[in-house]
């Protein structure tokens, strides 16, 4: 006992101006909603892509990031002897002992200073992180004051071209190459020789972290147990590299989501009131039609469903339009300070199926809430009064 959907769609078309204004309002709110989710997703995607599922990272217990962590050479020696650590062809562990510090660089666009991670890496680091590829110049030479720049830093900061010098600690370091690290956090870093960086910062015996590849992904629990039982490793913590980077993005992603959703919810009230006004006007304009349909034998719930579907169609069109607009944000990328690491992170807007579903659900909810009361009003109309409206 359904009123054909074409009746509702054609009515929306018949009131094109009102329909397009309402749809625009909904589309704008949906755009903001989707953009916020895409931004939070973008941060998470960037950080998650930085890590690999078969890598594990060792940090000092209780530290939230590499900056505050310390892992001694002795401890690294013990861990690298574990049978679960994958080995390269030359028999050396498939691992990287990293030392991490932060320097300030000036942004090209805003002239503001930004915190940039300088990662001192060991030679095996390049094999461990195959996504990092030199695109201009060359890699730094071990033992020299040379540095390579992540492409995102190269794009957005001043004085980081090949041949230019950057002050790190007491020395000036020469930029010798630019690397591409895809959509990972490494693209927002500077890389140099670990020993040289340690020397500069007077920390010759401790690294910030130790990352290695597992021989078998399933060995994670074995490594974890070993670390917990080995007396000399009691102050260390082990995490899957991907989980570690996900944690690093959580604070920032949650902040963006919370702030964005609060703004969106406030906006959505406006859009819902817009939809409600449109639907009340539709009901008022079609009072005689409602009376006629009821007289012909259509039940109250058929009328309710028809008007609710009309509001849903309105919000769905707005939702799809907002989503299409938001999808263009995927071409935009920028950098800001990640709260998790207090350092600059370049990231983009990332659209996922989950965001598409959430956004469409959100827009449909606006339609349901905005359309419900007018639909109830339509369904409760007295037939005789409705027919008399002619």
């Amino acid at each position: 006992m359904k009123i054909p959907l074409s009746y509702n769609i054609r009515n929306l078309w018949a009131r094109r101006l009102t329909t397009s204004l309402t749809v625009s309002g909904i589309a704008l709110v949906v755009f903001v909603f989707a953009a916020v989710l895409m931004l939070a997703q973008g941060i998470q995607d960037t950080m998650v892509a930085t890590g690999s599922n078969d890598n594990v990272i060792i940090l000092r217990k209780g530290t939230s990031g590499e900056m505050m962590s310390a892992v001694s050479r002795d401890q690294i020696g013990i861990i690298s002897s574990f049978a679960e650590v994958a080995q390269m062809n030359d028999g050396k562990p498939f691992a990287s002992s990293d030392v991490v510090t932060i320097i300030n660089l000036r942004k090209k666009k805003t002239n503001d200073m930004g915190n940039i991670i300088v990662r001192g890496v060991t030679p095996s680091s390049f094999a461990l992180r195959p996504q990092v590829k030199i695109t201009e110049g060359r890699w730094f030479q071990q033992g020299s004051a040379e540095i390579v720049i992540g492409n995102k830093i190269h794009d957005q900061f001043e004085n980081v071209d090949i041949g230019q010098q950057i002050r790190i600690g007491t020395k000036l370091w020469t930029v010798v190459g630019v690397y591409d690290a895809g959509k990972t956090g490494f693209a927002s870093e500077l890389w140099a020789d670990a020993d040289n960086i340690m020397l500069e910062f007077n920390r010759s015996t401790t690294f910030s972290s130790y990352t290695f590849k597992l021989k078998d992904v399933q060995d994670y629990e074995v490594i974890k147990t070993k670390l917990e039982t080995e007396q000399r490793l009691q102050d260390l913590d082990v995490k899957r590299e991907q989980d570690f980077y996900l944690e690093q993005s959580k604070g920032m992603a949650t902040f963006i989501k919370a702030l964005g959703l609060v703004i969106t919810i406030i906006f959505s009230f406006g859009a819902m009131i817009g939809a409600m006004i449109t639907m009340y006007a539709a009901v008022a304009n079609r009072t005689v039609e409602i009376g006629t349909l009821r007289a012909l034998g259509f039940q109250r719930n058929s009328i309710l469903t028809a008007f609710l579907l009309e509001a849903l169609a309105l919000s769905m069109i707005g939702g799809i339009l907002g989503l299409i607009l938001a999808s263009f944000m995927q071409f935009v990328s920028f950098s800001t300070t990640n709260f998790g690491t207090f350092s600059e992170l370049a990231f983009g807007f990332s659209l996922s199926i989950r965001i598409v579903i959430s956004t469409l659900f959100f827009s449909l909810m606006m339609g349901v809430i905005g359309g419900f009361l007018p639909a109830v009003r339509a369904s409760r109309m007295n037939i005789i009064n409705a027919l008399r409206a002619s």
Partner: protein
Amino acid sequence: MSTLVEVKSVTKVYKRDTLEIPVLQNISLDVPEGEFLALMGPSGSGKTTLLNLISGIDQPTSGSILVAGTDIAKLNESALAKWRSRNIGFVFQFYNLLPVLTAYENVELPLLLTNLSKKEKKERVEAVLSVVGLADRMDHSPRQLSGGQQQRVAIARAVVTDPTLLIGDEPTGDLDRKSAEEILTLLGRLNSEFKKTIIMVTHDPHAAGSAHKIQHLDKGELTSQ
């Protein structure tokens, strides 16, 4: 001829706040099957109210209304809607077509409440549009049709489910004389050729003249036959 509509001691009182307005007082009326009845009377006499009660879009304050043996005063709202869809065909003064639907879709509307197949619906709609002489206009929207043509579409919509009773509320009230004549001829044909029982409210004595029988109402009471 057996009695199709039996109105027994029907009273209708409207309430406005504490004020009670009696509209129909102790009305009794029998309409035999196959009848073409015209209800006449001045404005406010209660003729449309009586029509609304017989067609099941309003309920009497007291009394009973039996249509083809069903006491419709005892049906709840949902059952009454179902009953209307099967038993009543409406023809309104201002046609009440849905402007965004084509003539075909308007006529098809009551069939959406039936279990007929798509093919059967199509056959029925095309058949009744042929009867009213608008087979070539089925894809036209109401605004592309004249008043007389719109009323013919409305009549097609009223008869497409083959209802027990055809109800006309001033069906010629908005039409010029020529179109009104065509509509009255069509109603007469539906009555004589297709054996439809028709109850029609009208102000127009000429329109009432098309009916077999005229009932007058005044101040909520039947005055003459």
